[in-house]
């Protein structure tokens, strides 16, 4: 896993191409940037033997990265560095006026803000204010310690692979995995709390609907410090077309928020035509002489290699 510095200048144009080529453009709640949206409906593509829509492959977020939750192309407020753009236009600082940047990942409420209770808003602001100079252990964004990115941050972190099996959809993220069982089994007992939570899903046409419980809520939503508590309940809807999908997730947590809110993340498929960029597309070329090019996924390690990922600050003393 690589930190952002190594990605400087590697922002790729494919996501922008995807935006421009999209057939269905809607306006975001705050900004003018278009988003590719897949509408819920029947699935007309290939199916697996057990009837699931076949959506296996490598996917990635369309816009920016994990720097900023409600202003994805706004960089991290207070960033003292003068770096260039990183993945998908997630600059170290805003390069365009807010009205020309991508909308908030919060699509409801309409103002694009997380509906925090006042105490939680104050805490989020405190975490953000201390992001670049963490003087307490809890100020260190857990991703800097190789922790799994959790829900929803895993979806605007690096690219990721989906593998499918009878009754199972498996997500392989750069850090961590999610196994979504489709067989109707109950969630784990409520006192078991997990970084990537416990997922139960079913298909409705082109949409994978996933109930997410048992969340330890230790992963934050972004470097901007948004968080939930372990009481959070999430219902995700992944709506697929052939090469795009739209992620809509409703977060409910009366402990932290004044009302439920919806997170929307547009994503697209990585194919053998997608250049490697060490962020969205971390695939490697398979060795198979004389045959067409084929990507494959190498193992992902973080803690074993003795350095954090996405670690933009010196956190050694706080982290250990």
């Amino acid at each position, binding site marked *: 896993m690589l930190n952002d510095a190594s990605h400087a200048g590697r922002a790729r144009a494919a996501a922008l191409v995807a935006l421009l080529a999209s057939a269905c453009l809607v306006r975001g709640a705050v900004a003018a940037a278009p988003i590719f949206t897949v509408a819920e409906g029947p699935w007309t593509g290939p199916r697996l033997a057990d009837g699931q829509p076949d959506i296996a492959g490598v996917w990635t977020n369309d816009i920016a990265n994990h720097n900023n939750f409600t202003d994805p192309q706004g960089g991290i407020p207070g960033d003292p560095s003068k770096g260039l753009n990183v993945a998908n236009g997630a600059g170290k600082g805003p390069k365009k006026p807010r009205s020309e940047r991508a909308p908030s990942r919060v699509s409801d409420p309409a103002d694009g803000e997380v509906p925090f209770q006042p*105490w939680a808003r104050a*805490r989020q602001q405190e975490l953000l204010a201390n992001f670049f100079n963490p003087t*307490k*252990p*809890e100020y*260190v964004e*857990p991703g800097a*310690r*190789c*922790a*799994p990115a959790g829900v929803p941050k895993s979806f605007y972190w690096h690219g990721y692979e989906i*593998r499918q*099996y009878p009754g*199972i959809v*498996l997500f*392989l993220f750069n850090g*961590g*995995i999610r*196994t979504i*069982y489709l067989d109707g*089994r*109950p969630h*784990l007992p409520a006192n*078991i709390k*997990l*970084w*990537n939570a416990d997922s139960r899903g079913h298909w409705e046409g082109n949409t994978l609907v996933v109930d997410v419980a048992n969340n*330890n*809520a*230790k*992963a*934050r939503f972004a470097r901007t410090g948004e*968080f*939930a*508590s*372990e*009481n959070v309940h999430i219902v995700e809807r992944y709506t697929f077309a052939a090469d795009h999908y739209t992620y809509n997730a409703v977060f409910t947590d*009366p*402990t*932290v928020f004044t009302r439920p809110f919806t997170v929307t993340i547009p994503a697209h498929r990585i194919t053998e035509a997608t250049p490697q960029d060490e962020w969205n597309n971390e695939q*490697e070329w*398979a*060795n*198979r*002489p004389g045959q067409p090019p*084929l990507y*494959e*996924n*190498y*193992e*992902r*390690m973080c*803690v*074993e290699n003795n350095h954090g990922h996405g670690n933009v600050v010196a956190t050694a003393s706080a*982290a250990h």
Partner: protein
Amino acid sequence: MSAREACAPRVLALVLGALAGAPAFAAHPDLTGIWQAISTADYDLEPHSARKDAPPGAGVIDGDHIPYRPEALQKKAENFAARDKLDPRLSCFTLGVPRDNYYPEPFQILQRPRDLTLIYEFGNSVRTIHTNGTLHPVGDNPEFWLGDSRGHWEGKTLVVDVTDFTDKTWLDRAGDYHSDALHIVERWTPIDHDHLAYHAWIEDPKVYTRPWTIDVILYRLKDKNIQLIENYCYTLDFDQYYPLPAEDFPHAQ
């Protein structure tokens, strides 16, 4: 691999296929499931009496002992003496191959025609065994904690060639080790629906005088609604700092 290593399962497959009245095995076995070893292999691959930190075990090595080179035997002894500090397991590091397969925590096999995915609950390590005819990587000499795995089917046996290892993993809690020259050929053979025979042929000319083999039986976990439960063991060291100190949640007090 010796001729015996290469041919025995194939012959066995043909014999079993003939006995079953089938033209060998038309379809590959399905190894899908959640598996776990019961043996004491993770405590010590070699035969050992009971210790304070290990139950006794008769060992899983053909010939009982690992054929260390003399200088390597010295390092093994040092590892053993400091095993309560040096075992990579204690740092929650990915255990590697073959150890992940007999560590006393379950792992899940998911199978497609192009690959098998092995998810080891300890650390949620993900290993892909490619069965699509691709070869080991060339060029940049990668070093993987789980090695690079390329497999094919010989009758009902999945044969996996594993190379490109890091030298940072151990083989067990007793300090048995290898170098980055480690090369493993695994044979995964169903015994019946709920038992898998795991055989590993292990060579490392930097550390061993000759190749050696281990045999471990894997058992299918059949508990109701069995599933792996995420175990990112290394996060426990900083678990207390997240999501936030409990006093920050006014409604949770």
